[in-house]
């Protein structure tokens, strides 16, 4: 056993400054990067997302002359959607699992106690975690969206031209990151509320992939509007918005998505603040 000192005399151990939000975010970044599951999820997200883009673009381009007129028009009017959307579902699945587990794994392992001892103002602790995760997911998602755009536009160039200088395309590319960030924050919020990994992941999957289908069964336009207003429905933000079937414009969908994040995030903050750890 070594006899290192506790450094009481002289060489006092003190915070170098009054710790603030940036210190909490550095801490959260260390936590996020030091788990292998973070990197697996993201590797899967890149591979599948880019893979789906390539596959969808290749199939549509190859079969272009056999497509009916309506589909051809759609292809031309929303090429950016064809490029970016194929990977959206899988990528949001990966981000959701990561987001939910970011917090539920702290509850299941007991790490949450260390987190709350380090920052007893619990809403700040959760905000730091959310902000760090959001930044990380945004940057990572753009690292998928930007190459996907260039690969997809190269493949589809025979029948459509999508330019990076078109503001609609820039908006869609930047929105890919925002959409994924929102998916991550929704999952993180649900995880903070229910605290158990299996329950949180099931709820998130139900919200994204089951509920929209169920809601669309409601007769009339109500069901369709409700379904389109579910988080996954708002993925219209990563399209041109020129599809005939769209119920909401990208701007409207973006606002709906923001509302989801605010409502669920707010509920998570209240839950974390009120309940014992």
């Amino acid at each position, binding site marked *: *056993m*070594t006899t*290192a*000192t*506790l*450094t*009481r005399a002289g060489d*006092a*151990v*003190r*915070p*170098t*400054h*009054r*710790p603030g939000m940036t*210190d*909490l975010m*550095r*801490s*959260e970044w*260390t*936590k996020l990067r*030091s*788990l*292998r*599951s973070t990197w697996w999820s993201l590797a899967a997200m890149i591979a599948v997302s880019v893979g789906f883009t390539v596959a969808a673009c290749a199939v549509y381009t190859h079969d272009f002359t056999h497509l009916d007129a309506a589909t051809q028009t759609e292809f031309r009017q929303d090429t950016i959607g064809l490029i970016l959307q194929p990977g959206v579902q899988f990528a949001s699945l990966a981000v959701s699992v990561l987001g939910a587990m970011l917090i539920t*794994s*702290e509850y299941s*392992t*007991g*790490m*949450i*106690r*260390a987190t*709350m*001892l*380090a*920052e*007893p*103002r619990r809403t700040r602790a959760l905000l730091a975690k959310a902000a760090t995760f959001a930044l990380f997911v945004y940057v990572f998602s753009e690292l998928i969206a930007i190459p996907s755009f260039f690969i997809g536009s190269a493949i589809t160039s025979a029948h459509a031209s999508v330019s990076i200088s078109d503001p609609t395309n820039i908006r869609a590319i930047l929105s890919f990151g925002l959409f994924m960030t929102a998916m991550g924050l929704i999952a993180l919020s649900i995880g903070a509320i229910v605290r158990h990994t299996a329950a949180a992941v099931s709820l998130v999957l139900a919200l994204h992939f089951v509920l929209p289908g169920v809601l669309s069964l409601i007769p009339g336009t109500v069901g369709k509007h409700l379904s389109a207003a579910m988080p996954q429905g708002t993925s219209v933000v990563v399209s041109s918005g020129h599809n005939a079937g769209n119920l909401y414009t990208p701007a409207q969908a973006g606002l709906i998505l923001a509302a989801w994040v605010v409502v669920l995030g707010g509920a998570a903050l209240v839950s974390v603040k009120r309940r*014992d*750890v």
Partner: protein
Amino acid sequence: MPKNTENLRRGHAPAIEARGLTKSYGSKTVVDGLDFQVHAGRVTGFLGPNGAGKSTTMRLLLGLERPDSGQALIEGRPYAELTAPLSHVGALLEAKAFHKGRSARNHLLALAQSQALPERRVDEVLDLVGLHDVAGKRAGGYSLGMAQRLGIAAALLGDPRIVLLDEPVNGLDPEGVFWIRNLMKRLAAEGRAVLVSSHLMNEMAVTADHLMVIGRGRLLADCGTAEFIERHTDPAVYAATPDVARPALLEEAFMRLTASAVEYSAR
């Protein structure tokens, strides 16, 4: 002059104070109107039968749980009002408080960053608890004793003036037990307040200067260790025991005091 009042408060406030601290789970009152103070410069043993409420009291002191009534104060303030709290209070809890998938070094690094502590402190505490060689390995693979050492490293990270240890010798080998005993004594000798819960009476008899005993959430005794033994052992036995052997009477004294407060016992 806020600085002066701050100093005054720190000078006069006990390291830890509970005032009418009460917590119930459902209809069961687990911590029942506790009033106590824990002072700097000594090891205070926190004793009580299983389920007496020791761990719950510690979680209340640390703000992990809210009391139904009463107050838990650290140097006169609720835990939640401390800035860089790990520099004030270090705690080893009964249940694990680290992620299994993360290495000891990264766990401690994240905690140090959250407190704006210099990164070199991570290596210092790793040395101090003897985990340096395994610091890069996943903490999920650690033995009970290694996990306990990681918890102690986290508790000492901020060089805190107050240390709370909930059953720290749990899972430690004899060398580890010896090490913890000396560590606690040294922390107290350096002027820190040490509050430690344990079921090992022989261990407490030689480590604790002061004892707080609870049963069913109520304070049963709060006095010096020697005085406690004298007060609660059979007077005939006490008189017949030579001075040096008296610490061995702690177990008997404890049993006599808590006999009526034991909830979970074999029949």
